[in-house]
C-alpha cells in the first residue's frame, strides 16, 4: 500500500512537472521553406508580415500574442487594432525591432527577401509561411499554435477545417466534371492556373479550371480567350465583399454557355483568395454554385 502510494506520488509529481518540461524543451516546427524554427519558450510577442499570416495567427489562438502586423491586416476585426509595421512590400524594420518580437512570421513570396534576411541577421527568429495547399492551412495552424503554446485553442480549429474540407471532398468527389472560369480581377482580366489554391478549391468541388494549364500562377488573359474556352460556369471575386459588378460585362455575350444557363456566380473574394480557415466557407459556397450549375444542364 505504501509502495503504491509512493508510486502514485511519483506519478503525480511527474504529471505536475510535465508542462515545465514542455516549457524547458525547445518547441521546434518546420516552416514552409523546410527550415527548423525553434523557440525556448512559447512566443509571447509575434509580428505577422502578411495579412494572411496575421489571420492564421488569430485563428490558431495566438491573437493576443500578436504585437505587430503589416497594413491591410483586417481580419479578424481585432487584428485592425494591432500596431502596424509598414506594408508587406516595404517593412518598417525599426518598428519591428522596437516591438522586440520573439517570433516573426514572414511571407516568402510577398516580403522583400533582403529585409527578411536582415531581420534574421539582427537575431530575430523568422518563420517563412507560404500555405499553397489546403492541407498546409491546417498544418500552419498547428505549427503556429505550437510555437505560441496555444495548442488547445489552435488544434480544434485545424481539425475542424480539415474535417470540413474532407466532407466537401467526399461529397463532391465523384460529381460530374464541370468547366469553370474563375475571375480574380477585372482590369486587367486575371484568372488562376492549377497550381493556385483557388484552382484546388474548384477541383475539390468537381470543377475543371479552363485555364488550369497556363504557365503563370495568375495569368492575364483576354475576354476572347474566355469566349473561346466557353466555360459552363463563371465565378468572380470583386472589389469588396459584396460587389458582384464584374459579372455584368459577361452578360452581353450570348454565345457563352455560362450566360445562357445563368451560371454567373459571385463569391466574396476574401473567402477564396486568402489562404486562411475562411477558405472553407468560400469553398462551400463554390461547391454549392457548381451543384446549381450541374442542375441546369
Amino acid at each position, binding site marked *: 500500500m505504501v509502495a503504491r502510494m509512493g508510486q502514485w506520488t511519483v506519478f503525480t509529481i511527474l504529471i505536475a512537472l510535465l508542462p515545465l518540461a514542455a516549457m524547458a524543451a525547445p518547441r521546434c516546427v518546420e516552416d514552409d521553406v523546410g527550415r527548423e524554427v525553434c523557440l525556448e519558450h512559447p512566443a509571447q510577442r509575434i509580428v505577422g508580415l502578411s495579412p494572411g499570416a496575421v489571420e492564421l495567427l488569430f485563428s490558431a489562438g495566438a491573437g493576443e500574442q500578436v504585437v505587430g502586423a503589416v497594413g491591410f491586416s483586417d481580419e479578424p476585426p481585432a487584428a485592425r487594432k494591432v500596431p502596424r509595421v509598414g506594408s508587406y512590400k516595404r517593412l518598417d524594420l525599426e518598428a519591428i525591432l522596437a516591438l522586440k518580437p520573439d517570433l516573426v512570421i514572414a511571407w516568402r513570396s510577398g516580403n522583400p527577401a533582403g529585409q527578411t534576411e536582415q531581420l534574421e541577421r539582427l537575431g530575430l527568429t523568422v518563420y517563412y509561411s507560404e500555405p499553397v495547399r489546403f492541407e498546409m492551412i491546417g498544418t500552419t495552424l498547428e505549427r503556429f499554435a505550437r510555437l505560441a503554446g496555444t495548442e488547445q485553442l489552435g488544434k480544434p480549429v485545424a481539425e475542424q477545417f480539415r474535417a470540413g474540407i474532407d466532407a466537401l471532398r467526399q461529397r463532391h468527389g465523384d460529381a460530374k466534371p464541370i468547366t469553370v472560369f474563375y475571375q480574380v480581377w477585372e482590369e486587367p482580366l*486575371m484568372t488562376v492556373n492549377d497550381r493556385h489554391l483557388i484552382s484546388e478549391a474548384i477541383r475539390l468541388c468537381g470543377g475543371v479550371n479552363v485555364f488550369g494549364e497556363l504557365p503563370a500562377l495568375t495569368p492575364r488573359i483576354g475576354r476572347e*480567350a474566355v469566349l473561346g474556352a466557353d466555360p459552363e460556369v463563371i465565378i468572380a471575386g470583386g472589389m469588396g465583399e459584396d460587389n458582384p459588378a464584374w459579372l455584368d460585362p459577361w452578360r452581353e455575350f*450570348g*454565345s457563352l454557355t455560362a450566360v445562357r444557363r445563368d451560371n454567373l456566380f459571385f463569391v466574396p473574394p476574401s473567402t477564396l483568395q486568402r489562404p486562411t480557415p475562411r477558405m472553407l466557407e468560400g469553398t462551400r459556397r463554390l461547391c454549392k454554385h457548381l451543384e446549381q450549375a450541374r442542375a441546369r444542364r
Partner: protein
Amino acid sequence: MPGVDAPARAYPWTALWVLALAGGLAMALAVAVGSVPLGAADLWAVFTGGGNELQRDLIWSLRAPRALAAFATGGLLALAGALMQVLLRNPLADPYVLGLSGGAAVGALGAMLLGAGAMLVSGSAFAGALLSTLLVFGLARGSGSWTPTRLLLTGVVVAAGWGAVITFLLTMSPTERLPGMLYWLMGDLAHARHPGWAWLVLVIAVAAMLPMGRSLNVLARGPLQAAALGVAVRPLETSVYVLASLVTAVAVTTAGSVGFVGLIVPHLLRLVLGNDQRLILPASALAGGTLLTLADTLARILLAPQQLPVGVITALLGVPVFLFLLYRSR
C-alpha cells in the same frame, strides 16, 4: 531645312494614300486574328451578317471596337507628339513631356485606389489631364510672357511631381489593385469599348490643324522668323498647346498612358517625308493609328491567351525601325 515645300507638293497624296492603305490592312489584321482562330470563310460570313453567335461576339463586340480604339488612340498620340515637337522646337518632346499623362495617371490611379469603376477612372483621368494642362500653362505664363523653354521646364518639373505622387499611390495600394494600375500606366486597350469619341476628336483635330500647317512650318524655324513673316506667334502657340493637350487627354482617357507612339511616329515620318507640317500632321495620325493597331494585335496574340500591355510592343516595334532610319539618314 531644305525643300520644305517642294517635295511635299510633289507627293503628299501618294504618301497619305499609302499610309491609309497600311492603316486599313492593320485594321483588317486586328479583326481577323485573335486567341480564337477564325477562318476566312467564317470572317466573310460574319461580315455578310451571318456566322454563329460566338463569331459575331468575337468580331463585333471584342475585336472591332478594340481595333477602332487602338487606331484612334495611336492617331491622337502621334498627332499630339508632332504638335508638341513643333511647339517646343525640341526633338525630345512627346505628348507627355509637359506632365499631362502624369496628371491623368494620378487621377486614374487615385480612382482605382478608392475602388472606383471604369467610368469614374476614365473621368478622373480626363480631369487630371486637364488640371495638369492648366497648371503648367498658368505657371509657365507667370507674370505674362512665356517661352517654349519656360513651358518645357515647367512641364518637366510638374511631370516629376506627378511621378512622385504616382509612386506614392503605388506604394499605398493593396496588391490585388497593382496589376490594374501598372497596366494603366503602360497603356492597355482591353477595356476601350467606345471608340466613337476618340475618332470624333481625331477627325476634328486633324481638320482644325490643316489650315494652320503653313504657319506651323514657319514656326518650326523659330518664333522670330515666324513673327517677321507675319505669323501671330503667341495665339498660334496657345492654340497648338490647347489642341495638343485636349487630343492627348482623350487618348490617355481611352487607353491609359501608351508610351512611345507620340515620340517616334512624327520623327519617323519626318525622316522619310520631310518636315512639312501640312503633310506630317495627317500622316502622323494615320501612321500612329497603324502602329498602335498592329502593336495591340501583337499584344493580344503573341502569348495568347495571355495578354501583354500594348506599350511593350510599341517600343519593341518602334525602336529598331527608328534607329535603322536614323542611322541611314546620315
